């Protein structure tokens, strides 16, 4: 127990607090005020009319759908090191590695799939990647499919996704 | 005619529910059979123009007792495997039915010895007002004794079901 500990007096011991009814009344007053204000003028409610109006304020740190990046020479940045699969808390990354014959590197994924139904979009894979090969900067926040299989994104699909935060930022950093 | 068919349906439910209690191994079905029987019993009370008893039956037997038993059963939470096996249940039922049947026959004969017919009821028969008047004029002592009994039962239930005490 150091001297830095600040003791906050405990509230709610008085009769008025223990009665709860005044507090309930105050809470109801707030919600009722919001209700009345918004009923009186529902145009003032500041919401996005979603499918017609798309969000424009996605920041760079927004974790959207994944993508696999390219290097400066347009080759795949991923070397199938399995770091993302190791870091993944929901085990939704499936990688099968193979020999790489383009002379750029030794190893590449022959299959790199993300089961987005299981993905929790935590971004650990992005943090774990030593090659900056996987990123979540596509800005895509909705994925639609007719079957479960549609939600398993395969390697080529992930490679096709584009980063939305400028061309200069879309390449894999060394 | 309408009365007769209502009676037939209600007694069908009543006996069906009772048989469910008797024959089924599962506690769920026992409880459900009991519920049906009690609701049908309430219906029979209504048929006998006892409107207050109809509600009291629903409230106490069907409502309170069934809910209480369900709470008790879920509290002990028996798995199906923990239920008694009762391999010779049917045999036992047949044997006890053979023993019971003469007694029931006797009861039925005795009951039907009353030589009377249903009359038109006087006004207000079976309503709360009349029952209450009767209860607090000629039945005060039983009523008071009963209140003591209820208190005793409540205390007993609390004492028995307490967790600390061991048998």
């Amino acid at each position, binding site marked *: 127990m150091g001297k830095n500990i600040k003791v906050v007096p405990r509230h709610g011991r008085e009769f008025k607090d223990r009665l709860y009814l005044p507090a309930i009344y105050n809470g109801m007053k707030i919600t009722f005020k919001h209700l009345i204000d918004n009923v009186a003028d529902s145009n003032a409610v500041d919401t996005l009319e979603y499918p017609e109006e798309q969000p424009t304020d996605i920041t760079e740190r927004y974790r959207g759908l994944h993508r696999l990046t390219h290097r400066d020479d347009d080759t795949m940045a991923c070397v*199938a090191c399995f770091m993302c699969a190791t870091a993944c808390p929901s085990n939704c990354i499936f990688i099968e590695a193979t020999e790489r014959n383009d002379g750029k590197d030794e*190893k590449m994924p022959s299959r790199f799939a993300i089961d987005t139904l299981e993905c929790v979009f935590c971004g650990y894979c992005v943090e774990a990647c030593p090659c900056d090969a996987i990123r979540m900067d596509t800005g895509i926040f909705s994925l639609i499919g007719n079957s479960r299989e549609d939600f398993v994104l395969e390697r080529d699909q992930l490679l096709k996704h584009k980063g939305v935060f400028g061309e200069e930022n879309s390449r894999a950093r060394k | 005619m309408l009365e007769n068919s209502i009676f037939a349906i209600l007694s069908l439910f009543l006996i069906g529910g009772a048989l469910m209690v008797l024959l089924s191994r599962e506690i769920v079905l026992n409880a459900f059979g009991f519920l049906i029987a009690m609701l049908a019993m309430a219906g029979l009370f209504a048929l006998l123009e006892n409107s207050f008893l109809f509600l009291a039956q629903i409230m106490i037997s069907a409502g309170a007792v069934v809910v209480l038993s369900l709470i008790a059963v879920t509290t002990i939470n028996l798995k199906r495997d923990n239920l008694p096996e009762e391999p010779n249940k049917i045999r036992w039922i047949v044997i006890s039915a053979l023993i019971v049947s003469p007694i029931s026959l006797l009861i039925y004969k005795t009951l039907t010895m009353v030589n009377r017919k249903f009359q038109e009821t006087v006004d207000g028969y079976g309503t709360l007002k009349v029952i209450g008047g009767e209860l607090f004029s000629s039945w005060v002592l039983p009523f008071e004794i009963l209140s003591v009994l209820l208190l005793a039962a409540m205390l007993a239930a609390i004492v028995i079901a307490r967790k600390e005490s061991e048998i």
Partner: protein
Amino acid sequence: MKSIDIIVDGQIYSATKGSLLIDLLIKNDLKVPYFCYHEALGADGNCRMCMVEIEGQKRPQIACDTLIKDNMIVKTKGEMIDGVHRDVLELELVNHPVDCPVCDQAGECKLQDFYMDYGLYDSKIDVAEKVKHEKHIDLGSSVMLDQERCVLCARCTRFTSNITKTHELGIIGRGDHARVSTMPGKKLDNPYAMNVVDLCPVGALTSKDFRFAQRVWFLTSTPSICQGCAKGCNIYVDHNKLKYKDEKIYRFRPRRNDEVNGHFICDEGRLSYKSLQEERQEFMEIDGREATLGEVLGRYDTLLKSSENIVILADANLYIEELEKIISYADSIGAKLYTPMESYVDEEFGDDWLRSSMRASNAKGVEMLSIADKIPDEKISLLIDFNHPDAKSIEAEHTISMRTHSDSGKSDIVLPLASYLQSSGKIINEDGIEQFSDRVLECSEPVATVSEWISILSRADIGGEV
């Protein structure tokens, strides 16, 4: 040899006079880094990692080449010795390409471990400035060489020159250009070659077979016994269950057992895991089509009732417990039990080290249980085959066969049998050493072990319910 007491890090240990200091350190789990020393290969003293401080000596000494003397006081920790370790490690890593993401050794790499334990310095050299070597060299015998990652510990060259005496590998060049290589035009080619992969402390030598298949930290290692031949080499089975998939074996590694195989196994045994998961019998068959257990039991009962002369063939690779089960089963149905050993002998395979020409792993066990060898020449009405390789050549009216691997042979009933990694029991190797092998993988329905099949079948025999 005289036993003496020496002091290491303030603790007193008793040791044999004149033995190597590093052996004592390893035996007592004292942390000491080393690349080139190996208990099977002896000291070489070229990596300089195992430096320890010995009181009375001016400079730190390498533990692998220091003999234990009286009144020795050794320090393996301390500021000075840690600095030495760090400097030596930095030197080893000067030209290392640091491509751990693509390196198969990552996770069981000594360089990684030691860097985390002793290194943790900031590199002074840019990756681009490092000396380049060749990265893709197929040495033959499924061994890949990456010269950049090599720390020149010479374990592999010593293995080929001291253990196999085939002398394929050597270190050529000097200074920065020193590297491991084969003689020009020669390939690594001996039946034990893949042991260099295990010997290599870094990712320079990797197995082509395991290359990129799976990262090692996902794998579970289970100790087991190889059943390639009667030698009974001890192995680790590295396996892993991927999401939505069955458990898969990725590799066999040798497990040290000085009584049987020392540190090594042969290449054929090492690669024998593949055949354990290929072309497996996975369902029950009656007359060549898939069947349910009820049908199988019905057919089994009629076959058993209508047959006069029943013969049971037992595989000599089965565990002792399973063979005993088969013996009592044979008694219960009045059948004769044979294990023809002729087909197991493979003279070409055998050598005088870890390969035995008897390919049945439990041949001694069969002998011990005195199961008859030769089948007398008479008419067999029902043949019950427990995975014997020679069963196809035996004439019988009806056949019930339990197979681990699917096979085109004609049988009335085929039952899928568990492989030896899916079962557990004892085997006796050709030297009479009894070893226990634990179950590594679970069976998936309807695959079952010999004991399970016998109990399923004999319950049907009694007429009880299934």
